[in-house]
């Protein structure tokens, strides 16, 4: 198995080439651009036989893969920041038409002001559009996810588009070791995409006619069932991925020292790895702290999150995103975690206290010291109640670089 020292975007590009995508649509925006730079070169070199279509904007970019997927092609596109929010109109039609297109997102802060740094608000803003949505935390995981997402999204039981997200710069641009599978392994794991009802003159069908209002609930329910049904497919796909690629990938959540944790940090994305080193230090001091890193946001791994956090006294949700004025008094993940804890998929006897930690906004780095600051607050919260619902770690615990 070749091992390459490459950034996250190059890892995604490697996986896309091995997945033999048919149609790629591009539009430049930092930081995801490197993916398309590499894929266009792969097409020019003949390493990948695909149509590389230059979109006229992200809206067109998404529409191009929408059409290509309707015709039965495997597709790849991507974007960052405001490029993710510009085509907001198109997300629901793509998932509604059950087109399993894949979009690689290297997160970037939304404007204003101009900021290249990463923040998860861009992709999280699209979480209600019926797409599978998850985060990778290292270039290796970007490679794994690219293949796993295709496999899950193209499964006839699922047929949903996928947003394969990772932190801009921190994962997209930082080089790291990535195990690249053999082509034979990829072929074994990922069968060619077979569209169920493509736009094909030999078997004419109509896609997306108007419906009666009374047909709406059932039509929406099919997407609801598909995305929750995807859990079973994810479980199976990850199991096979681990067998074929000899790997140890978690299907829904990564848990770190959660067996006996009294306090826990819930965090997605790359900073989870820094968090783990902080936990190592704190554990040496006798602090019973653990970490939960969700790999998916849609479908939200509610049962796993609830189970992992059910024995904790206090939980801190790290928000590298914004939802100004949201319930939960912070970003978009706190309400998700709270809902998972109180809404009975798994029985939680005593719901832990939950605080939100705004951290890493605008691409600000998050350091070990700041995780220790969070742990201190959590320890206090575990004894009673937090003195406030939201802590702006970036501002309240400034650290030297």
């Amino acid at each position, binding site marked *: 198995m070749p091992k390459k020292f490459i950034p996250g975007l190059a890892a995604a590009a490697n996986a896309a080439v091995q997945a033999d995508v048919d149609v790629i649509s591009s539009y430049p925006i930092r930081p995801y651009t490197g993916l398309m730079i590499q894929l266009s070169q792969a097409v020019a070199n003949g390493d990948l036989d695909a149509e590389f279509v230059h979109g006229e904007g992200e809206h067109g970019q998404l529409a191009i893969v929408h059409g290509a997927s309707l015709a039965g092609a495997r597709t790849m596109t991507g974007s960052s920041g405001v490029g993710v929010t510009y085509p907001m109109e198109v997300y629901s039609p793509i998932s*509604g*038409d*059950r087109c399993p297109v894949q979009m690689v997102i290297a997160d970037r802060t939304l404007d204003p002001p101009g900021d290249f740094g990463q923040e998860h608000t861009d992709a999280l803003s699209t979480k209600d559009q019926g797409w599978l949505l998850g985060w990778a935390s290292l270039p290796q995981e970007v490679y794994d996810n690219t293949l796993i997402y295709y496999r899950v999204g193209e499964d006839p039981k699922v*047929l949903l588009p996928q947003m394969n997200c990772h932190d801009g710069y921190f994962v997209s641009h930082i080089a790291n070791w990535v195990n690249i599978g053999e082509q034979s392994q990829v072929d074994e794991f990922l069968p060619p995409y077979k569209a*169920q*009802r493509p736009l094909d003159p030999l078997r*004419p*069908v*109509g*896609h*997306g*006619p108007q*419906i009666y209002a*009374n*047909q709406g*609930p*059932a*039509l929406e*329910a*099919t997407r*609801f*069932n*598909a995305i*929750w*049904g995807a*859990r*079973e497919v994810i*479980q199976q796909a990850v199991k096979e991925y681990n067998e074929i690629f000899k790997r140890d990938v978690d299907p829904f959540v990564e848990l770190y020292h959660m067996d006996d944790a009294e306090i826990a940090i819930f965090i997605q994305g790359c900073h989870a790895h820094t968090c783990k080193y902080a936990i190592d230090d704190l554990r040496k001091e006798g602090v019973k702290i653990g970490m939960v890193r969700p790999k998916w946001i849609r479908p939200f791994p509610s*049962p*796993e999150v609830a189970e992992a956090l059910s024995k904790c006294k206090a939980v801190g949700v790290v928000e590298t995103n914004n939802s100004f004025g949201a319930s939960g008094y912070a970003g978009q993940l706190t309400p998700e975690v709270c809902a998972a804890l109180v809404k009975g*998929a*798994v029985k939680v006897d005593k719901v832990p206290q939950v605080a939100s930690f705004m951290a890493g906004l605008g691409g600000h780095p998050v350091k070990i010291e700041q995780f220790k600051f969070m742990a201190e607050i959590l320890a206090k919260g575990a004894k009673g109640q937090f003195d406030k619902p939201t802590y702006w770690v970036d501002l309240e615990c400034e650290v030297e670089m």
Partner: protein
Amino acid sequence: MFDTKKLQVPIPAHLEIPEGGVVESPKPDGEQDQFPSGGWRILRSVIDQERCTKCLTCWLACPEPCIELAEDRSVSIDLKYCKGCGCCANVCPVQCISRVPESDFKGDVEFMDEPF
């Protein structure tokens, strides 16, 4: 693993709808019989077959299309669908299509519960 079946919603059989709202296309030269539009017709086009020159101008002018073409190029109107717009009468170069109130006729319209 948590039972995903519990997370899914059963869809009653009578409300089932194809995933993605994909529908079968009608056959070429066929009809979309879910929607017979003959009930819209206030004025009916009546063709004077004696004077008709079989020029087919009306055939190409019909939006539905509900002017039927026989082997011998004679034309007739499919009353199940004709909305009575009168384009055929308007374009006829020999004015052999007249427009007659639909209320002068009995039948020829598919009875429906609702217009659509």
